[in-house]
């Protein structure tokens, strides 16, 4: 997996994000409504796309897009 794909898939997933607007260093809360519903949409997305499970605690610790990517990537690698 790479971060460019990761970001473009997130942009597809959320209605309030336009394509090519999100960058790795962006703070999630500043770019879109990072609330409980969108957190669930994200959990569902990574479950289908990468077959990994993320907890609420792990999500809360993620501040930037890069944090999310690192979290998912580490889960994918641990699984392999």
């Amino acid at each position, binding site marked *: 997996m790479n971060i460019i794909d990761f970001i473009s898939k997130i942009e597809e997933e959320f*209605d309030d994000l336009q394509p090519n607007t999100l960058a790795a260093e962006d703070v999630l809360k500043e770019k879109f*409504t990072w*609330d*409980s*519903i*969108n*957190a*669930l*949409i994200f*959990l*569902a997305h990574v*479950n*289908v796309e990468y077959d990994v*499970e*993320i*907890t*609420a605690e792990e*999500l809360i610790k993620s501040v930037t897009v890069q944090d999310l990517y690192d979290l998912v990537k580490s889960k994918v690698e641990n699984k392999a």
Partner: protein
Amino acid sequence: MAIFQVPNIKIAGISACVPEKVFHNKNYDRISEKERETLIKTIGVKSKRHVNTGTTTSDLCYVSANKLIEDLKWERNEIDLLVFVSQSRDYIIPATAGLLQERLSLSKSCIAFDVSLGCSGYVYGLSIIGSMMATGMINKGLLLTGDISTLNTSYNDKSAFPLFGDAGSATAIVRDEKVPPMKFNLQTDGSGYDAIIIPDGGIRNFANKDTSFEYKEVSEGISRNNFNINLDGIKVFNFSLREVKPNVLKLLSEYNIDKDEIDYWIFHQANLLMNETIRKQLKLDPESVPYSLKEFGNTSSASIPLTIVTQLAEKVNNSKLNMAFSGFGVGLSWGTVVLEIDNIVCPRLLNHKD
């Protein structure tokens, strides 16, 4: 492993009943209009039915059962078994099944008892009734399932209030030596007991006039007390995404069933995002996975029969179909059954006037 077959029993009919009062989530004023839109789209619940205080799950199940018995032209004294699956009983004691036995004018030689399960309850209930009837001494049984979840959900809990609706159902089961066995895979993980919980009012946390009623703000938009349903959405979500797929696949492989042999998959109606994720995990065709969520919300153990009554009545009424039912949630408890549905009686959805 609780993977097993139950021979010689089949479903003869299914009915369901909902209260008349409709609640539209677009009117849920605890969250902004934009948030409401996202919520409705994500959980898939546009409206749902609410009882007024005083109406119980057994009232809805009674209406369902009465109509079903009439349509099947069953003699009431031939019904030897009644199982009431619910987590919203009439009284703390006694069991509600007895009240239903009396109200439905069933005989005194009828076995009647309650089972305390929610989302998985319909599948568990079929396995219990089926196993008892498979012994050969009981020919007709009634499975009554459902819940009132709206009376004990806090209006100020945006994670739970928009989700739940009220419903009751009745399923008639008969012995038949020509049908293929029902095939079950049932599972439990009690370590997640607090993922969906009403903490007070039982014996562990006895009702307390000060602390049980006190509303606490758990997080923004979520305020509830200890008599309310306390839902840990992310925990339930992760559990369902982790456990349902392997449970289904294990059952299919154990009995060499091909996914394509199943005409319809009826999942417990949890919420649209969760159900659609499970559907994608299992790579199922959307046409084969009907929903009743949009108009009725999450109706606990009534959601599988309610989906059949509202979405498939005509099909189950005049064809032979292979179906899979899968329930998952509170307990944590989950299970799947694969069975044949052959020309069953399925009256139109019933409405209850409070």
